[in-house]
């Protein structure tokens, strides 16, 4: 299983024969191995990799991890399965996906803040005119004396978005090893510049 982190660059289109293909471009600058975890020592075999562009502030404790591996500061440390060369300082590149035709994309969708029920749960809302006082209000949330309470799970306004979202079986259109690009067909979650994980079974 290959797991590679990258950032969403944006969408464009390419022509495949006569067909237009909507594509999303993901830039995967080489994920650098910071630490090799072993089953004996850490409980599981895994790699700790540095991903993303450099963050503004890195604590000295975290910066020490990068320094030990001889890797430049990056914004995230992520754990991935053992793949490629398992050695601190090794680089995981898009070549891991060379043989793949399909991939899964894990992203974090756009945050919408505290959203009302119409946006968050696709409620219909109420009339705009004819004396209506509430236009986007949820309406009733329960019954009367019996059951005398609002049932759990009642859909209401609240924080919406910024959730992990997985898109399965996206077609890989092409891979550009020179520029570290993975080009997949269709849309993926999150804003341009957002962190994305590409996995392949």
């Amino acid at each position, binding site marked *: 299983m290959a797991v590679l982190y990258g950032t969403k660059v944006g969408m*464009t289109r*390419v022509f495949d024969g006569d067909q237009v293909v909507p594509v999303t471009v993901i830039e995967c600058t080489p994920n650098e191995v910071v630490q090799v975890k072993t089953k004996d020592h850490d409980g599981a075999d895994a790699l700790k990799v540095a991903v993303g562009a450099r963050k503004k502030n890195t604590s000295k404790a975290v910066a020490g991890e990068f320094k030990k591996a001889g890797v430049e500061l990056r914004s995230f440390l992520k754990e991935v399965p053992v793949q490629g060369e398992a050695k601190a300082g090794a680089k995981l590149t898009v070549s891991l996906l060379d043989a793949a035709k399909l991939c899964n994309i894990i992203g974090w969708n756009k945050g919408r803040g505290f959203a009302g029920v119409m946006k968050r749960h696709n409620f219909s809302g109420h009339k705009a005119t004819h004396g209506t006082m509430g236009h986007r209000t949820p309406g009733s949330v329960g019954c009367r004396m019996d059951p005398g309470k609002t049932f759990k799970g009642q859909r209401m306004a609240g924080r919406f978005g910024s959730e992990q979202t997985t898109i399965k079986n996206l077609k890989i259109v092409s891979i550009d090893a020179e*520029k570290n690009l993975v*080009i997949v067909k269709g849309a993926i979650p999150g804003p341009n510049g957002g962190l994305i994980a590409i996995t392949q079974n």
Partner: protein
Amino acid sequence: MDLLAHVAQSSLRKEALGAFAVGDTVNVHTRIKEGDKERVQVFNGTVIAKSRGQGPINATFTVRRVVAGEGVERIFPSHSPKVVQVEVVRKGAVRRAKLYYLRDRVGKATKVKELMVNEAVAPAAK
């Protein structure tokens, strides 16, 4: 934007479609599939807009014609492989980049004045 342009680069048209401007009357040749046969269809009309889009790959142009009293507009992606050729039938003399005002006109008023180039003065323009 640079990386997006880089990805779309290979899909851009290799040879230019030929020079045509807003206001020109053109024949647009497109390849269409009927069953398993392929043939070239020609759409004749006035170019009323050219859109640059977000990045060159998304550029389009709009051609308008009036069929049986009903306005018909087609938007062609400039880089679509299905658009084979754009043939200029008549050059138009216009002063705007978008000729959306033609939509409100009926009959003879929908015509764009022909651009007359004085070849003795400006031979290079042809």
